[in-house]
């Protein structure tokens, strides 16, 4: 793995910390949701952390990404503030969206995170517009669409890949193939099991990557980013991965997946895998690992405390922000 050389132990530890942050954030979000402190609906990314962190580690802060209904991981990986995220989940005025968005709509345009999106495939065209903007800006910027296997069957996937390929936009289309769209197995709705094979229709690279191997994801993304920055156009990267939890955190949510399948994937924990690798390579010892865990949890506690002491919006604020000045 020549490119793995690019990944200093520092960078790998940072990637580990981000994956751990996503996991702990969502464990807490799930608990607080069931405790009634978070409302509506929460979709957890747990098990898929290597995709968001692997891809975003290959990006600059000024690059832009878009997310899905399952958006916490992408937000954290792009550098979002945990406090404002948690405050948003808590419906507070200090949240990213002043309490107007919630879990499905966290965005931070300041760090190039163009938003979670409640519509399957709804963000693909929007971030393609960010890719067009990057091309027109001419500063070598890149844009990344994250979307699920389910979304890859929808019209915008096709329309945008064709446009991006034909206009040579600096884009990465990252499909998180976690084998299910809500309760429906991808096998039942996809003509072919490899989504990456759709890239050939547009004459662009289509890669299948082990989405639980963060180094593999990082390498594939880095190559695609180089290609995009050089003006050679978009790539499609399919990351095979799996969500550990049910589609949403609702109680008694149906889950048609076999227990064995879930357990098998849990054995391929992306966090443990990186941890092991780092330890083997001497980049992490047990003490550093515990410190990291403590720090992550401390940051999370701070975020929760911030959310809890933040005020709810005033009712009348519902009338604001319909239009921009």
């Amino acid at each position, binding site marked *: 793995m020549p490119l793995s050389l690019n990944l200093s132990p520092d960078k790998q530890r940072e990637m580990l910390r981000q994956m751990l942050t996503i996991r702990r954030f969502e464990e807490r979000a799930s608990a607080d949701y069931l405790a009634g402190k978070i409302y*509506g609906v929460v979709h957890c990314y747990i098990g898929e952390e290597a995709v968001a962190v692997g891809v975003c580690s290959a990006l600059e802060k000024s690059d832009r990404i878009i997310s899905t209904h399952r958006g916490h991981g992408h937000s954290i990986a792009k550098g979002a503030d945990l406090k404002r995220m948690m405050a948003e989940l808590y419906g507070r005025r200090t949240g990213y969206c002043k309490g107007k968005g919630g879990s499905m*709509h966290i965005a931070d345009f300041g760090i190039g995170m163009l938003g979670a999106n*409640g519509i399957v*495939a709804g963000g693909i065209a929007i971030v393609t517009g960010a890719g067009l903007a990057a091309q027109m800006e001419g500063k070598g910027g890149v844009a990344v669409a994250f979307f699920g296997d*389910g979304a890859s*069957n929808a019209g915008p996937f096709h329309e945008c890949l064709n446009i991006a390929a034909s206009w040579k936009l600096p884009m990465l289309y990252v499909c998180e193939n976690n084998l299910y769209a809500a309760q429906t197995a991808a096998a039942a709705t996809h003509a072919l099991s490899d989504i990456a094979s759709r890239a050939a229709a547009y004459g662009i690279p289509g890669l299948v990557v082990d989405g639980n191997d963060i180094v593999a994801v990082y390498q594939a993304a880095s190559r695609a980013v180089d290609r995009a920055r050089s003006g050679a156009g978009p790539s499609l990267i399919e990351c095979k991965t799996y969500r550990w939890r049910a589609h949403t955190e609702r109680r008694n949510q149906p889950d048609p997946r076999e227990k064995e399948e879930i357990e098998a994937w849990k054995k391929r924990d992306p966090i443990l895998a990186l941890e092991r690798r780092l330890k083997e390579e001497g980049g992490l010892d047990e003490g550093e690992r515990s410190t990291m865990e403590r720090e992550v949890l401390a940051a999370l506690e701070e975020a929760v405390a911030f959310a809890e002491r933040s005020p*709810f919006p005033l*009712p009348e604020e519902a009338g604001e922000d319909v239009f921009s000045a």
Partner: protein
Amino acid sequence: MRELSYSEAALEAIAEEMRRDPRIFYMSTDPILPLLQEFGEQRIKATPITEAALTGIGIGAAGSGFRPIVDWRQVTFCFVAMDQIVNQAAKIHYMFGGQVSFPLLFRATVGGGGRVAAQHSQSPYSMFMNVAGLKMFLPSTPYDVKGLLKTAIRDNNPVISFESSRLLRLKGPVPEEDYTIPFGEALVRREGRDATIVALAWLVHEALAAADELDKEGISVEVVDPRSLVPLDAERIRASVQKTGRLLIADEAGPTAGFSAEVAALVSEDRATFARLKAPPKRVCALQVPIPYSPVLENHVFPDRNRIAAGVRELLKA
């Protein structure tokens, strides 16, 4: 009489009709388990997340002799299918000169209250009312949802069943025998003298609660539930307003160019009704904003029994 929830009643309507007519089949992303168990994968199809394609496939199958049910699930998801709805389903019978019919049921949940923010809390039925060629209804009780769904499934046109998210768990009496409810027949849910409330779905219940409250103040309110939106029973609504002289429309959607505007217009443009209006018609609707997430904000956006009662009091002061 036996009680069922709103969603159980809906499911029962579909299952009974599917037993009766083998030409009916059902398409949705994520199939409904009891239907899947009874009718199998051939008639209960799990589909990719492609509401546009499903809607079109439904139209084509309807034009080929089947009677498809396309479940968009949340109404939000049907906007990707809007071309198929507005440009195809609504017009295909007319623009082909009535050659064949397109018996086709669309299902969609509507409404807020779930803290699921702007995209997932919509009540856009008025947009569809504006399109000629679609029938649609929005029931307020388990009894009505079952009867109207059966009528819809037997109708030879595209019909949209809007179902209220807030009412899915509401229980109510539903007879075991087969029955249908004709489109275009509003129901007077409560009789009264002083003012008419025309309310939809969840707000029928809020209106009835407001009426109870107002009753204590000596104000007698009539509550009319239109049930179907297209066709809309203008006559019964007008008759009620002719009796009471006052009209309040309660809608979980925003007012602008909405159902509430249509009812206000239908009532005030009618010479006989206009002549008896003692006060200007009043719309008690959601604020004209996207729906926010935080409970404080969301609660503020929607009308409820208190705002309805306050509105009626105002009407009486006029």
